[in-house]
């Protein structure tokens, strides 16, 4: 089991989502780095060349992933974004209204997806 640095890098994607990269201590040693900042900069350029990122403490990332797709970077913290939550809820409401109109329960909708 790997151990990780206590900071992560956050990229704000054009689609509105955020990508969070965790850095392994093993990788830092494997690639010959002793300085965390230098390693993070090198690694981010390796996997996302030329993409801007923000380093934040891992403690500033929510541990509850139930609303993972509604997270945003606010300053130096990753938080559940009320705007994204509202947009998501609105989409769900639209979906449920449509299902209701079609007289299809959520369970039946799931079954339809599987079929």
């Amino acid at each position, binding site marked *: 089991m790997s151990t*990780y640095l206590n900071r992560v890098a956050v990229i704000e994607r054009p689609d509105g989502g955020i990508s969070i*990269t*965790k850095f*392994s201590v093993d990788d830092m040693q494997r690639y010959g780095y002793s300085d965390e900042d230098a390693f993070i900069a090198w690694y981010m350029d390796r996997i996302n060349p030329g993409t801007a990122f923000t380093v934040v403490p891992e403690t500033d990332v929510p*541990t509850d992933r139930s609303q*993972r797709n509604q997270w945003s970077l606010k300053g130096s913290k990753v938080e559940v974004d009320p705007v994204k939550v509202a947009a998501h809820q609105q989409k769900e409401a639209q979906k449920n209204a449509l299902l209701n109109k079609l007289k299809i329960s959520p369970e039946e909708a799931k079954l339809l997806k599987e079929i």
Partner: protein
Amino acid sequence: MVYTKQWDETKPAGSRALSLGDDDIREFKTAIRERLQGGGMYFPSTNDDNAGLFNWIKFIEQSSNPTQEANRGFLFTKDISSVTELFWMDSSGNVFQLTTAGKFLLTNLGGWQARGDLIRGSATGWERYALGTSGKILKSDGTDAVWGDNIQAATQAQMEAASATDVYVSPGRTQYHPGVAKAWIVFNGTGSPAVTASHNMDSSITDHGTGEYTVSFTTDFSSAAYALAGFSTESSALSNCFVTSTTDSVAGTKRITVVKHDGTLTDGTAISLVAYGDQA
């Protein structure tokens, strides 16, 4: 050995009575037998078929080598460091010491030539076998022990060609064979994603959202043309999930998604990936 009869070549004296001649003859016989026995000859006082054979041969230490003679050889002893050692001198006058301090002197067996020489049995007897060139190994050709080429580790090119049958696969190059997985990983995508075990994959991992991750190869593939197989479990009762991707592969990383049976993305509890292809 203590002799019972003295060796006296003045006896019998010319004035000795003839009637005592029988005593002199018996004494003479005994004196001869005792001396031959002292030299190692089997010589009983009564008739015996083995009379004249030797029990052993006792040598007197020589202070120098014998004088060479044509068509003759000499087995003799000399003192070497206060030990009586056995020597042989052939008809050409070559002298070989055969023993040393209680052992055979092997340096003279076949003739000492050079450091690293071996003694090898040939069709006609023991012979000197000179040290082979560096890196050679001693092996059998079915008849003789001979120096031969060591079995070589397959090169990267040989591993990639996957056709050679006269080289061995070494641990450090196994991964170059096209039939061998180049990388694999198992990680937990729930909570804060973390790698459980892996080979040739970074433990650093990127979380893009629910059920979406990017993993990185430690040694990149030579191109995006590699095969990836994946499997995942998740915490719900219907636990088997598909691992798929919505982006093109790149040589150094792979973005994947974990999809439940109903088509929604989910955080896998144990996401495993295996990759095959040609490495850079």
